[in-house]
């Protein structure tokens, strides 16, 4: 038994899961002392609905980060697509068509990112910072900086606010479905091995016949698409939208991935890790709100978490070398 635990601890991913679960349990105990509502199903529903959009983005961001890239434009693209879909609906375009158009536009933006990064070999940070700024600006243009309220077809809101069995929001089920599909693809097909190979050593991957460029473009396109999907979900949940929405989502999604064990240098980490990362961050933020920790401290705490989880991930190979 002891040997088994020790062996599990020597595995990078299993160790992450266990540490994160430990933190989650500690948080559940600690914050429930502060407030009785913290561990109730109602609070879970609340958290799950609130973090569904970021969770979606974190899923596809995990893939982008596994190949060693990063996408900072997700928050802007999400907001832009929500505005686009809302505007279309307000001009009486049927809901399904409006959704499809916005998703296509989102995917196109992702493709643009991917093309500039994979084919024109530009740095992901700069390119996506550029698209991030450009589309954030365009969000403000839609309503001259004001919010968008009221859509003609109210049935559209049902998805964002409905729950299964009164506990699990539909949007969170969507997150779970995306994670399960991606996780299966990572484990059961060669997709997972290919993108980890690209993230670890793109050159060796290319020399093994892996289509590095196509993968990168594909993943950025997918990331754009998922960001658009998150935009639709958030529009449906909030029944309206403002231009600053989603500012900082890229940061939170990256935090979740890093915390879940995705290496910033690529090639290391799992989808399950990112999923646990979402839950931990979700409960942490909810706990901080319940105990009235001000937003300023929250921002600082999240920054510290990023640093700590990256340092933890970075220190491991060093220690292994020293042991040898």
């Amino acid at each position, binding site marked *: 038994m002891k040997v088994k635990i020790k062996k599990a601890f020597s595995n990078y991913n299993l160790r992450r899961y266990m540490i994160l679960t430990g933190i989650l349990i500690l948080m559940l105990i600690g914050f429930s002392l502060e407030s009785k509502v913290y561990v109730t199903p109602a609070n879970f529903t609340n958290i799950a609905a609130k973090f569904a959009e970021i969770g979606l983005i974190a899923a596809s961001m995990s893939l982008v980060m596994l190949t060693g890239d*990063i996408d900072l434009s997700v928050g802007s693209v999400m907001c832009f697509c929500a505005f686009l879909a809302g505007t279309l609906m307000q001009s009486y375009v049927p809901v399904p068509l409006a959704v499809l158009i916005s998703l296509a536009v989102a995917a196109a933006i992702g493709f643009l990112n991917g093309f*500039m990064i994979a084919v*024109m*070999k*530009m*740095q992901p*940070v*700069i*390119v996506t*910072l*550029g*698209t*991030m*700024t*450009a*589309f*954030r*600006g*365009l969000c*403000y*243009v839609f309503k*001259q*900086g004001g919010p968008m309220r009221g859509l003609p077809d109210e049935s559209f809101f049902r998805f964002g606010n409905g729950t299964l069995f009164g506990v699990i929001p539909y949007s969170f089920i969507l997150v779970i479905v995306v994670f399960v599909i991606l996780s299966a693809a990572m484990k059961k097909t060669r997709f997972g091995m290919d993108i980890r190979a690209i993230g670890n050593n793109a050159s060796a991957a290319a020399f093994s016949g892996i289509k590095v460029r196509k993968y990168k473009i594909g993943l950025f396109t997918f990331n754009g698409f998922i960001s658009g999907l998150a935009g639709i979900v958030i529009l449906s949940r909030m029944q309206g939208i403002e*231009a600053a929405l989603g500012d900082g989502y890229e*940061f939170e999604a*990256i935090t979740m991935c*890093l915390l879940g064990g995705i290496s*910033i*240098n690529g090639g290391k980490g799992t989808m399950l890790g990112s999923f646990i990362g979402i839950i931990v961050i979700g409960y942490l933020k909810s706990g901080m709100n319940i105990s009235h920790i*001000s*937003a*300023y*401290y*929250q*921002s*600082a*705490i*999240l*920054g*510290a978490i*990023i*640093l700590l989880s*990256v*340092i933890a991930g*970075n220190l491991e190979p060093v220690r292994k070398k020293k042991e040898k």
Partner: protein
Amino acid sequence: MKSGRRSHEWAPLLSMILLFLLFTLITPRFAGLGNIKMIGKQVAINGILGVSLFLIVLTGGIDISIGSTLSLLCVLTGFLESKKIPFAIVFLQVLICGAVVGYLKGVLVTKIKLPDLIVTLAAKNLIRGIALMFSVQAYIITSPAMLSLGSGQLAGVIPVPFLCFAAVAAITAVILGKTRFGRRIYAVGGNSEAAVQAGIDVGRTKRSVYAFSGILIGVAAILYSSLYQNILASKIGSDTVNTLLAVVLLGGASMSGGRGRVLGIVFGALTMAVLNNGMILARSTDYWVTALTGILILLSMLVQFLQSSAVFRKKLGGEKDR
């Protein structure tokens, strides 16, 4: 050959002049002395911060926490001012604090070997959090020394903030061009492997650059406080990264490091200031400025890509000739 190398700096000057003419046509008020003075004032802060980011970019790195560092240092300025501490000491303390913050970022990047993007992303949140904690309500700057710094004019024409910007640019240009430290920065960004072989301590150079860039942010913070007087951390520097990146890219710096000159950054900053001021005067919604900034970033990247592929093609041709 030399003229070819310098063309990078003059491109933003040209675009600035074109923009200037365009805005003059749209709104005659634009070319008035008052407005030009205004632009001179407006360019100062983003210009100095642009130089500060440019230094990091020269070594091949990036810093997206400049905006929040600015807000922290502004809050510090306001805090010290409210304690009625003499200006000289406030000035010194802010610069030292800037250097320390920068140096710490450098330590995380070079000693623990974390990617600069993540370090500065985390630093951005951490520093902003700290800044917000210290500025529960706004600080109001009242000391005459600082007020005259913000509103003073040399010979009744040139705004003092602009002079500060010019001085910072000139000093940085001299350090980069004429000192051993400056040459080291170019060497580290140009070919870090070769720099190691040449006996340059790459880590130490990078840490010094982060500290130096922190000092410049300190200067910008002092100017900001004296220009706007009302300091509230949440209002300062939230979208600075994008503007600064546009300034640096417009200025002809290469994001992979080792290329670019301060003069180019000055013109880049002026272009952005003219654009910003002109758009507002032309009563366009200033939302377009944000969008345009992003588009400018992408366009400059595109230009760099085209240039480098042109150079590459030329090189290939040259090889064959041999």
